[in-house]
């Protein structure tokens, strides 16, 4: 069965814009996802300095730690590009190595977030204790969910490759995964800057 993992003839028909349907879809989806993260980030920004009780950002954030995990995610974008380059030149082994690397780095990022959040909870920062906890966990949690979905996509591509169903002609699938992955990375850069790096105002109510 020659179709295997491909999506039939859609890729071969000429399109009005010259872009593959699936690529246009991915870009439209990522544009839409900006309108998803935008309000979540705006909500966080709205609530800066508005918590009536602690813990406050400066009490819980460990900037060096989070910087390392941000670096890990950033490097995963590099390995993602290397994976795409590998499949585009027909290098299955390289593809698999770099896919695993990307998925691993992504998993380290998510694992690091889980550890970070657990520490915060132990320090008293929960979803419900104040608006900082509320807006922080929901924003970064949904970002982490996006990364997790990305990791699952990467593993499914790996599986397809190992079954011989991700050939050079199917490189678009890796490219689409890459677009999604880079988007999630860019969102993290925005979140890391606005949430972690820019110093939060001191609490309005001092105890």
């Amino acid at each position, binding site marked *: 069965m020659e179709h295997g993992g491909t999506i*039939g*003839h859609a890729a071969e028909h000429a399109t009005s814009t010259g872009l593959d349907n699936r690529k246009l879809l991915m870009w*439209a989806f990522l544009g*839409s996802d900006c309108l998803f993260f935008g309000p979540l980030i705006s909500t966080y920004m*709205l609530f800066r300095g508005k918590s009536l009780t602690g813990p406050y950002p400066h009490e819980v954030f460990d900037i060096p730690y989070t910087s390392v995990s941000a670096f890990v995610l950033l490097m995963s974008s590099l390995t993602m590009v290397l994976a795409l380059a590998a499949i585009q030149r027909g290098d299955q082994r390289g593809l698999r190595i770099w896919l695993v690397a990307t998925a691993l780095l992504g998993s380290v990022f998510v694992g690091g977030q889980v550890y970070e959040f657990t520490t915060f909870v132990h320090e008293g920062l929960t979803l419900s204790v104040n608006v900082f906890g509320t807006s922080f966990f929901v924003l970064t949690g949904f970002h982490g969910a996006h990364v997790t979905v990305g990791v699952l996509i990467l593993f*499914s591509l790996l599986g397809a490759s190992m*079954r011989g*169903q991700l050939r050079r002609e199917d490189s678009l699938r890796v490219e689409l995964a890459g677009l999604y992955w880079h988007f999630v990375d860019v969102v993290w850069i925005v979140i890391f800057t606005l949430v972690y790096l820019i110093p939060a105002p001191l609490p309005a109510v001092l105890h």
Partner: protein
Amino acid sequence: MAVVGGALPRVLPRPTGYTGWWSWLTTVDHKRIGILYGVTSFAFFLLAGIEALVMRLQLATPNNTLVGAGTFNQLFTMHALSMIFLGVMPLSASFFNFIIPLQIGARDVAFPRLNALSYWIFLFGGILLNLGFLTGGAADVGWFAYANLTARAYSPGLGVDFYVLGLLVLGVSSLAAAFNFLVTIMNMRAPGMSLMRMPLFTWMTLVTSLLLVTAFPVITVGLIQLLFDRFYGTNFFAPGAGGDPLLWQHLFWLFGHPEVYILILPAMGIVSEILPTFARKPLFGYPVVVFSGIVIGFMGWGVWAHHMFTVGLGPVANAVFSLTTMIIAIPTGVKIFNWIATLWQGSIRLTAALYFAVGFVALFIIGGLSGVTHASAAADFQQQDTYYIVAHIHYVLFGGSIFGIFAGIYYWYPKITGRLMHEGLGKLHFWLMFIGMNLAFGPMHVAGLQGMPRRIFTYPSGMGWDLWNMMSTIGAFVIALSLLVFLHNAFRSRGTGKLAGNDPWDGRTLEWSIPSPPPLYNFATIPTVKAVDAYWHDKYVATGGEPEDGHHAIHLPQPSYWPFFAALGLALAAGGLAFHPAISVVGLLLMLFAVYSWAFEPVTEG
């Protein structure tokens, strides 16, 4: 055991048939999906209409006791939600589905299985939204569900949970459909069909799709925040912990205003096709009408706080939004003038479709004028939350969207079914609906300005409102009568209507160039487009175009059941949050299995 692309076991064989109930469940054909949308949404529309009739019976006389306040609150909430999300939007979607591929010369949409998914998610989402009626009370907080009445403490029942979960699920449906039509219109036009040669209905669908993909994520965030407040104790809208109920209003209306353009632009597109057809003249100012639609789409983002004039945003914010709201009347007015100019000195054929299209223009003008009066923040302080607003809403949404949709039904019914509807009954339907509509909603302007608040379940006598309310109730039942006429016409014509042939109206656009109903593959050969109003051009301007460059094999996507199961999984995952987490887990697993299998299933196999 057979496997799906070598990935997961396939329990059921891939469907291949086009007859029987299983074929409807597994269809990926845009025409069938359009019919599914149309029938389902019409049923929800009737349900929402019954909710309205009960309200009108209660309000017919002062101090009435037909239903109590609690039930009345559920009725006005669910009436609005059902009309907007389960009525107008999916009715528009049924036209997008059936007509867009035909108008652009394509065989199907870009992603046929995603298209099917949109429908099944809509069906399950609509059921989820209404489940409150069966579980102790539907949502009763108004369709815009202001915080923090919606907090768990003040709305403890399942009603608001179904509001949140139902709308989240429905949002996925709308988003998926919008992505599909965005890619379809941008990418799958016939050779020669540049953007400025597209039919106007296609253009308005494109703008609507862009609005959908940008506006729905915003309400999704608001709904997620409400969900988390209700289920997980977060403080987004909890003032006691530093949260802000106004955050909900901003997020809701940032979505809500583009939403009203999502509701009206498709109807405007339909009217922009019908007026030229029955005036035998091209649309006056086609590029300007296109541009106005695009401008409305952009400017629609800059007016949201006109829904919040009375909330206390301050004079600067109120002044800014007053201005932007007044300015957005301009592109709308431009369209209206172009429609009138289209009819001017045209060779008019008086069909039911034309009646509804002209009715749309007249009623939308009235609704638009009351809208302009709301634009002044100062004036709006008197109008807000009165029946004057209810009048405006219904003139633009009923006189506008619904009349436009009925115009589309009369216009495209022959294409969809192969038979013409009865013109006499169609005109009877029009006059009854036109009179009923004005009788129902006209007096509301007066009652509102005389101080009758919105959403009250009863009122005392001696306020001067009695006559207006009685008139409105009578009008509502005249509307209901008109719908009975329509339903009789629609059903009867299926069996005994005159055969329509390809082109009963001497149409201008490509859908009229193929048989009625269209064959599975739509076009035997994909046409080459040489001008706007492509079919009219082929018929009357330049016959004998370039020869087709050979017959390509016709590839059609094969049916699939994964969209149905993915939709079911999503609905269970969402609904389970209201009942038991185990249901959510099962739903999530089903959805993941279905999506994964779908990703590795080829478009066609074997």
